[in-house]
Structures are given as C-alpha cells and as structure tokens.
C-alpha cells in the first residue's frame, strides 16, 4: 500500500493515528521546505527515525546543547575528512571523547521533537507512506518506546501552542532607539530569547521551541521584550497575505 499527499490536506496527527490504530508497518516520509523526516513503523510502533536536518547539522546541534565546543567539532571534521572510508561525525566525536553516545542521542531526540512540533504547527510539505510486511513480530510486545514518547511530547506541545497561538507570528528586532537601561532590566531567559532573535530566529513558534521554556513563561518574556521596544511581533506574512 502506498499513500501520499499534502500535509495541509491530511493532518500529520491523523496519519500517525491511522498508522497506530491499524497497526501498520512501513515507512512514512515527510518532506518539508527545510527537512526530510523518515519514520519507520512496525505494527503501528515507531522503530526508527531519520532527519536530513539532524544529519546535516549534528555538529551544530551538539554545540547548541553545550555538549561540545566548536573547536572540537572542527577537529572532528578534520578527522572525518581524513578518514577512509568516510566516518560519521557523531562517531568521530565519540571516539575522540568529545561527546558521549547518550549526549548524541539526547541532541537528536530534542531536534526530532522540535522538527515534529514545527511540522504540526506549520504543516507545509508532503508525505508518503509505504507499507511493508512486519519484519519483527515481537515489536507488539515491546513496552515503552522512547521514540513514541518523544512523539507524544511533540503532539502535546504542538496542541498546547496552537491553543494559545492560533495564528503564526514573526518576531523581529525593533528599529527604534532603545532605553539605555533596557538591557539591564532583562532576565536571563529574556536575554537568551533576544540573542536568538539577533542570531536569526524569526518565527515565534521556532523561537519558543529553541528556548525550551514553558509556553506561558515564553509568552511573558516576549511580552516584556515587546514592552521594552526591543522586539516586534507581527502576523506571519504568508498568513497576512492570505487573510488579505
């Protein structure tokens, strides 16, 4: 069986629910403007996950999590370039003791969750599901599956976000002059949000995901930054154009 279509027409949550309910085995491929996610299913359970974004940015992800320093990633890249056959960067970094296998897994899990939440909030792209015969009959007895738990968290987070932010919004740095004392007034989490915005985060829900703050706290920080005239929140240009 093969099923394909647009994520705008067929919600990802419905797709996942259908695969789980019918205990399907196969591969679900999600293609978005920025990522290609591949999910492997065995009798309705997720058994593998892959993401082009994760594959391409594993070094950056590990730096962002504070697991490695940039110099170590550079060293890893040099060693990777010298390796024959070419080795994976994550493995090279583990081998030189820069990072543990668990830290790589943590970074990957967090990024995968963020990718899914983004996709649930902003369903742009297409999907295809190709079913296959179940290769492992024992899977159905497997207990808590860590990938399932990440997916469950992602679904809950997306639901919570959409409940309080029904439309997409962008965040931009204000053009105007700022109060000389404004920066001194900021809490640590507000500084982090402002820094992420200065470094290029421009979509509000992406900024929220990067911050890892509870949604209510994130909203408070954004409100304070806006009140200080440091940032500006606007409707997403695509949504605004559609509304017009």
């Amino acid at each position, binding site marked *: 069986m093969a099923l394909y279509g647009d994520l705008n027409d067929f919600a990802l949550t419905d797709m996942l629910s259908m695969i789980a309910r019918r205990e399907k085995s196969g*591969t679900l491929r999600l293609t978005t403007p920025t990522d290609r996610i*591949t999910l*492997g299913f065995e009798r309705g359970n997720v*058994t*593998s*996950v*892959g*993401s082009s974004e*994760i*594959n*391409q*940015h*594993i*070094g*950056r992800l590990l*730096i962002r999590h504070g697991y490695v*320093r*940039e*110099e170590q*990633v550079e060293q890893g*890249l040099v060693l*990777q*370039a010298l390796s024959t056959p*070419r080795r*994976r*960067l*994550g*493995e090279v970094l583990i081998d030189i003791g820069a990072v543990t*296998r668990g830290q*790589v*897994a*943590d970074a*990957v*899990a*967090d990024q995968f969750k963020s990718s899914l939440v983004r996709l649930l909030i902003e369903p742009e792209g297409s999907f295809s599901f190709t079913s296959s015969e179940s290769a492992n009959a024992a899977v159905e007895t497997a207990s808590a*599956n*860590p*990938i399932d*738990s*990440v997916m469950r968290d992602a679904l809950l987070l997306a639901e919570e976000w959409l409940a309080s932010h029904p439309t997409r919004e962008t965040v931009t*740095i*204000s*053009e*105007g*002059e*700022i109060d*000389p004392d404004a*920066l*001194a007034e*900021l809490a640590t989490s507000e*500084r982090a949000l*402002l*820094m992420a915005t*200065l*470094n*290029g985060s421009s979509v509000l829900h992406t900024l929220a995901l990067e911050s890892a703050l509870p949604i209510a706290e994130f909203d408070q920080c954004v409100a304070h930054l806006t009140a200080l005239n*440091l940032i500006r929140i606007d409707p997403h240009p695509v949504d605004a154009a559609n509304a017009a």
Partner: protein
Amino acid sequence: MFDDELLAERNGADAFSELDDHALEEWDSLKDLLSDLADRERVSENSGSFGVPALMGDGDGIARWVLAVGNVRRLSDILRLRQELPRDPWCIAARVIEIGPDRIRVGITTTMRVSHDQLQERVDQIIRATDGTTTDLEPVMLQSNNESWLTVDEAAHRLGAKVATVRGWVESGLFVTRQIETASGTEWRIRLRQRAAQQAVGV
C-alpha cells in the same frame, strides 16, 4: 532518551550524521577561499585595504575575535553587523554570544587575512557609531601554522594592531606570555593561541 539500538539503521536513517554535509561544505568553502586568497596574493601583495588584506604570509588559519559593543542605542545596529559581516570574503561567521546589562558581545570568525584594525574599521563602518556607542575588538584565538613566541612588536604587526594596544592585551592576560632576559633587559614573549583558545566563541 533514545536507545541506540532503536536509533540504529533502518531504511537509511539513524541517529548520527552520515556526514555533516553542511559543515563539510563550509569547510570546503573555507579551503577554497583560502586557496583563492593565496593565489590572489601571489599576484598582488598589496592590493588595498579590503580587496585582499594581504597582511601575513600564512593565510591558512582561522582567527576568532570578540567584539564588545557598549552603550547600544539600536539593536538593529547589532543585527546589521551580524548580517553584513559574513558577506565580506574574509569573514566566516558572526554571531551574538552574550547580551550583558551594558554591552553586547559578538563572536566573529575570520580568516587570518584581516587585521585587527581592518576589522575594527569595518565594524565601525557598519555600526556607524553614534550617540556614544563604543566598540572594542579583541582577538580570542589565532590558529595558524606559526606557533612561535613573538615579541610585542611582532604580535602587533601580526594582529595589525598598535603596540600599545597589544601591551594592554598582554597586561590583561589575554595571551599566554613569558618573560625572557635579553641583552636589553627583560622582554615579553607572546603566544597568540593557547590561553585565548580556552574562551569558546559560539558560532
């Protein structure tokens, strides 16, 4: 969170990068850029202030700098700095690394082909320092083939900074230093790399 076995290969997907393509692309671009700069330098040793800032012979290194901007009046100035600097051929990346109560620090990674004064000039040009906005640029790490001990004069020449400025950096402990006895008395010798390398600059 993830079990390694569960993350293991299936349909070509797993937890690790097949290879960090994007980073590798950047690395390759950097090598191309350095090679290109070296070729251009052979043609013209002194090609003007920013065409090819032919400062040093060993252009195969990376320099990291931290720019502290004080009395920030407009955040959009910082944004413009972060967006415009990487468009210069010698700039690899620029990223805000700290927002303090009275200043914002920007980490800048460049090739070794730009001097301190040239970079400072470019920064001031972008920020168009007005209303008392201050900029203070310090080298964090200079990674090149030459790891020798330098005199203050040599370090100043290498960094493209004034001797007095380098003395200030030495006194503030920015570099690994040692004192040696010479015929003309005790002199400082500076290593441009190790101490500074301990300060990570996020890019």
